């Protein structure tokens, strides 16, 4: 009897344990392999999508709602003049190589980023800094030369993560951070493997034991990998035309969220006829954004009327300012002296969203008598050379993926060739405003100026088409900052 009971108990354990033990590994698919794993020396989004808050941590972080949260700094104070930031650091934090984290590492990381020889892609984050002091190992005091409303926000970016003097030089190939996951291996061309950091300072924060990022560029191959179960999640699926299929499939969760990428058809504002605001508005009036999104991105993506991400709390919907109105477009063109037609060209990169949008734009503009010739232009190499640097173009189309980048329309010598002193002053003023409400109001005003002045055709927000196994929880639906934060991910069951 006892024997039989034992056997039964044993059988029960054997059959029950696997059913209760949730999976602790995750395979995340990405379209592009990162070139190196150091976000502080290069711009590509793919670097952040592997490393940010998984491997490396900053003083603060951006959460899934786009808000600033403490991370390596547990708290901070800002003096009333907005010029001195005092950060109180977490204690007992260790880098993956075992070395201790303290204020000296913060000073090192920021000094390295703002050094004249630094190749940090967002050096302007550190431009307002005049001094970094470390009164004790747990305190950092940063002094600014001017107030900066977004300084803390920028410190949450991948470009401002904290790296150690012992390891920083090798981070591109062998990343060492303070994050919940440690670098294990990189099979170049195929995958990066991370494992749980057993000494992570936030005990029991993560449930996953290992995370693998696999790089699959071909959209069909991405879908095949998901369906074959080779990857558990594709947070940015490259095939919008196949996304609806996943929405109907109960094995998967398919979520269409927003990225920080605004797709705009930039115009050369210094060149005729784009120097005439009537022409720019006419072109905008000729665009049916809904139809464009339907054709270019299978209907996924939010229409935009200005240059601000819907993820941002300061976002205001401006699509009604210059709405779709072909008759008005024709009238404006006639007024500007192009009643008999206008012939222009668009340099379009090879990305599907861009080339499809360019074709649809061409069809829509022909309805109002504008002949838009499409010139395929290889991105990034040729595009940077011809459009971005030489400004040898009429129109172009590209997604601007950096968060909070409305100031690109205020930059001198930027490829739009757009000059508006009122706008420039307003954006600079907004950036310096430390009061949140006042800053948002100024950004709203800036969005309105762009919507009315149309320095570029504002089309739609690049969606984040995420597909993952229905049993995976905790992935981000939107991406207020380029990332694949897996720290909150777990499997149900």
């Amino acid at each position: 009897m006892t024997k039989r009971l034992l056997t039964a108990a044993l059988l029960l354990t054997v059959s029950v344990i696997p059913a209760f033990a949730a999976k602790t590994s995750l395979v995340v698919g990405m379209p592009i392999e990162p070139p190196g794993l150091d976000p502080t020396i290069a711009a590509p989004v793919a670097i952040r999508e592997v490393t940010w808050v998984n491997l490396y941590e900053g003083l603060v972080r951006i959460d899934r709602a786009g808000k600033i949260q403490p991370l390596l700094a547990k708290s901070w104070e800002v003096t009333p003049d907005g010029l001195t930031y005092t950060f109180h650091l977490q204690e007992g934090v260790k880098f993956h190589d075992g070395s201790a984290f303290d204020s000296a590492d913060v000073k090192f990381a920021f000094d390295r980023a703002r050094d004249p020889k630094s190749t940090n892609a967002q050096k302007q984050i550190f431009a307002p800094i005049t001094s970094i002091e470390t009164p004790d190992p747990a305190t950092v005091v940063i002094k600014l030369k001017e107030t900066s409303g977004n300084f803390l926000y920028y410190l949450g970016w991948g470009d401002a993560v904290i790296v150690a003097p012992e390891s920083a030089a090798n981070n591109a190939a062998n990343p060492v951070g303070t994050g919940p996951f440690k670098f294990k291996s990189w099979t170049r061309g195929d995958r990066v493997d991370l494992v749980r950091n057993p000494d992570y300072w936030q005990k029991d924060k993560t449930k996953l034991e290992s995370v693998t990022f696999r790089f699959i560029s071909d959209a069909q191959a991405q879908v095949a990998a998901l369906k074959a179960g080779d990857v558990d999640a594709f947070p940015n699926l490259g095939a919008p035309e196949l996304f609806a299929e996943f929405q109907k499939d109960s094995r998967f969760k398919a979520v269409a969220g927003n990225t920080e990428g605004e797709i705009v058809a930039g115009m050369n504002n210094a060149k005729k006829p784009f120097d005439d605001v009537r022409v720019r508005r006419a072109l905008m009036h000729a665009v049916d954004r809904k139809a464009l999104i339907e054709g270019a991105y299978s209907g996924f993506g939010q229409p935009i009327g200005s240059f601000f991400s819907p993820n941002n709390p300061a976002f205001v919907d401006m699509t009604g300012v210059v709405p779709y109105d072909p008759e008005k477009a024709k009238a404006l063109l006639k007024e500007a002296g192009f009643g008999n037609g206008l012939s222009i060209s668009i340099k379009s990169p090879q990305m599907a969203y861009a080339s499809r949008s360019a074709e649809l734009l061409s069809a829509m503009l022909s309805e109002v008598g504008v002949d838009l010739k499409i010139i395929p232009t290889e991105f990034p190499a040729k595009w940077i050379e011809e459009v971005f640097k030489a400004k040898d173009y009429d129109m172009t189309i590209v997604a601007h993926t950096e968060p909070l980048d409305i100031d690109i329309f205020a930059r001198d010598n930027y490829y739009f060739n757009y000059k508006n002193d009122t706008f420039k002053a307003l954006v600079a003023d907004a950036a310096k405003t430390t009061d949140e409400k006042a800053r948002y109001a100024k950004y709203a005003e800036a969005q309105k100026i762009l919507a009315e002045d149309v320095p570029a055709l504002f089309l739609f927000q690049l969606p984040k088409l995420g597909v993952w196994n229905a049993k995976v929880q905790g992935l981000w639906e939107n991406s207020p900052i380029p990332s694949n934060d897996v720290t909150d991910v777990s499997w149900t069951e």
Partner: protein
Amino acid sequence: MMLRLITSRLVSLAVTLLAVSLAIFLILEVLPGDPAAIMLGTAAREDTLAALRQELGLDQPALVRYLHWIGGILHGDLGQSITYKMPVSTLVAERMNVTLPLSLLAILISTALALPLGVAAAARRDGIVDRAVLVFSQLGVAVPNFWIGLLFILFFSTWLGWFPAGGFPGWSAGVWPALQALLLPAVALALPQAAVLTRVTRSATLEVIGADFVRTARAKGVDRGGTLRRHVVPNALIPVTTILGLQLSFFFGGAILVENVFNLPGLGRLAYQALNQRDLVVIKDIVLIFSGLVIVVNFIVDIGYAILDPRLRGRA
């Protein structure tokens, strides 16, 4: 005699390689695209770009950079990848682990299919086998390898689940999983080449079958099979070897497409990525390696002729 042939071929091999290296360098010089701007994106400031260009040695004059590159290669140093920030030799070695077995497997499959099919088709001209082979080779030539690859993925991976839908587990995962990942792409890569090779084998065999010495052999009483084995096939192999040698460059070129479809981390995909990122160091090295491989293979084919055809040995 053989030695003289080999030496003269070796000298021309070295000269060709040097000319190729110069051509590659010059082409990349005029190719638009600044690696620093691509690495740092559109938000980077001018001084940051200048710092990176200096770090990468891009501010040096062209001649200095060419000599530096060639000098490095002669010392076995392929340089440092701009994007991966690691030695190109390590990258290439990792990728060779995929592309070399893939190409060899494809050659094997292609030859194993083409030779018997071609000979069988020629042996009974206009017979059923011949007609079937003709249809197969027409299809094989017409259908591109990447499309065959996509069909394979849909059928064998997504539908039947017999093979992974792409990717490569690495040889460390075991020989069978690695081979399993390479099999579908190798077949996709092999089929179009097999089709060409089948046609060549068939027509070469037909040509030899019609030759006087074959008739003589048959007249002397050698049976049909024996004539085919001893007289026809060895003679038909010469043009087949030529095509096989030429096809090797197609295998490497085709690997770029097939590796992308099957998401294999091979040399072809590395080349494609490097071109996109304007990782000039990696592109230069890979193009040189590909050209070098083709040149070396042609050298081997040349020597192979001499072995297969005694008449060529005197013509060094």
